[in-house]
């Protein structure tokens, strides 16, 4: 996959298949729009349990999973751990609140994230990160 340098790119060359996991319907709409704007396609899950079910049912293989941290039924930390136990190989990027402290972020990372981003998500945050993760 050819990529431009950070900051130059408006869209990702490869069409990313993204799973957006968030209990906030507003965030789901916005993050879907961002993914579409950078040339990706997306599916949504309203909480961690749904995300697990999607994978358990043999759902699509996602290039990227955007994982909200605070969710009912199954939170982001638990969901990430579970997906890694299920040997899900997708890039998982945690989406945290600015109110989260360092310890909470570390615990989230240790659950199996590739990276963490603070809300609100924007194209400028996501594009360089995806490039970086794909080049790694």
């Amino acid at each position, binding site marked *: 996959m050819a990529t431009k340098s950070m900051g130059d790119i408006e869209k990702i060359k490869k069409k990313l298949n993204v799973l957006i996991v968030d209990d*906030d*319907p*507003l*965030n789901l*709409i*916005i993050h879907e*729009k*961002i993914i579409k*704007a950078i040339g990706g396609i997306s599916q949504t899950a309203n909480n961690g349990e749904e995300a697990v079910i999607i994978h358990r049912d043999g759902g699509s293989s996602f290039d990227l999973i955007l994982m909200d941290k*605070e969710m009912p039924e199954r939170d982001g930390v638990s969901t990430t751990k579970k997906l890694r136990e299920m040997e899900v190989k997708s890039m998982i990027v945690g989406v945290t*609140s600015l*109110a989260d402290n360092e310890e909470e972020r570390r615990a989230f990372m240790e659950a199996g994230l590739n990276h963490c981003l603070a*809300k*609100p998500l*924007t*194209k400028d945050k996501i594009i360089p990160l995806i490039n970086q993760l794909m080049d790694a």
Partner: protein
Amino acid sequence: MQRQVALIKQSLFDQGYLDEQFMELEELQDDVNPNFVEEVATLYFKDSARLINSIDQALERGSFDFNRLDNYMHQFKGSSTSIGASKVKTECTMFREYCRMGNAEGCLRTFQQVKKEHATLRKKLEHYFQLARQAGPKETARRSK
């Protein structure tokens, strides 16, 4: 009309009602979704009205379950952050601080501020979107960065 729309939007930023996140949302608007921001704002006000109602009911019962109240406000703050509702977000943060301190009076007082800022923003944005629609989708000016 265009100038009026631009001035109204500028004032929303200058007076601190909106922050850069609102601009990020505007940049996501395209020909397929020319009213994306208004749709997002509509969803925000619908969802936040529900949260306000839940918090109102909890406070009216006199039951200060600070964890529960904090949880509601966490959601409210998150949505406010996502749309760039700066003043509302600030008041939500204050409310959560009072929850953490277990300060019921502080919660009550701050919640009035949350509702006030929320209502003010709603009124201003409804006015802005109404004018923006009249001006036409391509004429919404952008705030220079």
